[in-house]
């Protein structure tokens, strides 16, 4: 089962190594790890997808909390959340195939961000499934290069991490945007 953690860490040298090393030495396989700044200076946020069961996820959370530079861990697997991955795919495109490819791009609500005589770069944002789907239909044309960011995730509604211990989490807002999760 893929478990997704959102981990807030102090933005200090070596913190990414500490977190990644923890997964390695405890023999958990990271499916995807992304890291970037948050709105708060000095605080970074990681989204970590890992293949484990419920007890393993619980132990991992306890292990992550033992790292001094970790500020907060949220297991958002079971929460209503938006999961996204961004990919850029360079696909071979001849004069004949270009139109076909661009139609596929439209269907997937992706975008063409670069056009060269023999290729296109397509940018797509969505769940991993959606990106895998686009990739599948592009493969016959010749995928020349691809890069993916890996999963980023955010729980839905106004529910935010409580800033202080003991401060109650704000209840999740009504889940009214059905389309966001089920693209394509």
């Amino acid at each position, binding site marked *: 089962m893929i478990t997704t953690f959102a981990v807030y860490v102090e933005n200090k040298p070596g913190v990414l190594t500490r977190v990644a*090393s923890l997964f390695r030495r405890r023999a958990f396989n990271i499916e995807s790890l992304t890291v970037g700044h948050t709105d708060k200076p000095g605080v970074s946020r990681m989204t970590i997808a890992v293949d484990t069961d419920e007890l393993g996820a619980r*132990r991992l959370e*306890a292990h992550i909390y033992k790292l*001094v530079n970790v500020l907060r861990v949220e297991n958002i697997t079971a929460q209503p959340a938006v999961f996204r991955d961004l990919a850029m795919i360079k696909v071979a495109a001849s004069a004949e195939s270009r139109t076909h490819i661009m139609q596929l791009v439209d269907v997937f609500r992706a975008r063409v961000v670069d056009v060269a005589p023999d290729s296109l770069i397509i940018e797509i944002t969505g769940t991993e499934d959606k990106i895998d789907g686009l990739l599948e239909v592009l493969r016959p044309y010749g995928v020349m290069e691809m890069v993916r960011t890996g999963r980023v995730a955010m729980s839905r509604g106004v529910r935010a991490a409580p800033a202080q211990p003991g401060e109650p989490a704000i209840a999740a807002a009504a889940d009214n945007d059905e389309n966001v999760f089920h693209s394509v």
Partner: protein
Amino acid sequence: MKRTGAQIIWECLVRQGVTDIFGYPGGAILPTYDAMLDYPIRHVLVRHEQGATHMADGYARASGRVGVAIATSGPGATNMVTGIATAMLDSSPIVCITGQVGSKLIGSDAFQESDVTGVTLPITKHNYLVTRAEDIAPAFREAFEIAASGRPGPVHIDVTKDAQQSSCEFDWDAALPKKPAFRPDWSAKPAEFQRALELINGAERPIMLAGHGIMLSGAMDIIRAFAEKANIPVSPTLLGIGGFPASHPLNLGMMGMHGEAWVNVAIQEADLLLAFGMRFDDRVTGNLKTYAQNAKKIHIDIDAAEINKNVRVDVGIVGDLKESLEQLMPGVRPGDRAKWIAHINELKGDSAVRDIQNLPDDGHLYAAHVINDIWRATKGDAIVVSDVGQHQMWEAQYYHHDKPRSLITSGGLGTMGFALPAAIGAKLACPEKEVWVVVGDGGFQMTMCELATIAQEQIDINVAIINNGYLGMIRQWQEFFYERRYAAAPLLNPDFAKLAEAFGLEGRTVTQRKDVIPVVEAARSSRKTVVIDFQVEQEDTVYPMVPAGADLDAMIRRPSPSPIVETGADVL
């Protein structure tokens, strides 16, 4: 006040209450060594940096205070790695300080540069690379806090040479560790305590598995009160030995791979395991699939990551052992387990006749006899520091520890060479205590250079080398599992008594059982460290033995002696 980084290091150590430090100088730490002369801290010059970490570890385990080791960059720091890993697996609070090349040189493969914080990252609770004098005091204050709090462990601070040399304003109060970040409250709720109490009060065949956590949380008294009130038999792990008196009628003896046979059988038959401050190491569980299948399990541990790690438990209580037991105590009902205890005693009967103490004297010197005689001579009152191997298991079986922190040994990592330096640390932490090293001929030679440290620092401990001319545990495994093909197990040893004399210490050699007690007594009354070479039976075997990965009650047993000689309780 203005201080150099080097001075700040000592200012911090003095304020942390550090009185002894174990180390070895080198280029990148020289500024700190120079400043040391102005501060009231005893420095013990070791002969290898691994020894410094084990000494700090032994110091911490004997006293409960944080042990401190110091070394230079590069090889000095990497030599510490084994000692740091040892402390990590046995939850021992130590702070290791290393010098690092100047901050401008980092990454340039400078002389004696190594990425040592990268190396120690997975074997420390936390580590620091400090590149500015201003950051030294906050790092040191936080390091001591981290090492000693929660589940204790090693912390490593790497300080660049320029950080030691440059000056800044030193403000101890301003260096107070910041409030820790948010941590979820995983402590047990009343409902979990209630559930635990129901299991405890309802159990007919309970057994308490008592681990190192007893010492770490200071739960000796309450563990005893708890066991007595509920009438629950207790078995310690290797590191739990001493947490519950060996002479107590409810103490069954150690569990596990070389634990008492009746304990392992009792665990498999139990209907409730009370795992208190222990972590279900593979050396105590055997095959997890068949481990204690009839038993409900209650696990108390301060580390939430230990709950459900190896063994799935019914109640997991995250918290300090002493505090958790204080919560449970009022609800524990006096129990009558007479039937269960009588049953365990029946199991014991079989084992007692197999005991090596009951073998007729056949002129051979057995390690178990030596260790048991040291116990008798010291009246069980010494701190024994044992190394790793057969003698370690015999020590656990034949030296009966009634007091906490009286057995110091490398349990988790199984570090050969641990005992001699760790004993030096233990002696400095508890100068009034008698300290004995029990070590094999193999392990002794891994760190015997520290005999020079003993001589230079005029330390009075005693060393019992259990010399069987083999890497004994290796030989035992090869005997059982590799068709007696003794690959790289025999040892050609130096004359250990002469070796000790060469270091300026006393050396003795013992080959007969009748000489054991007199030589041990002579060593006890000597003001010098005495190294005793006990030349014991070469191909002796530790029984019982649960083969690695086998079911806990599938033990290889000592062949029963015949005719059966008298049995008797092993009491002073």
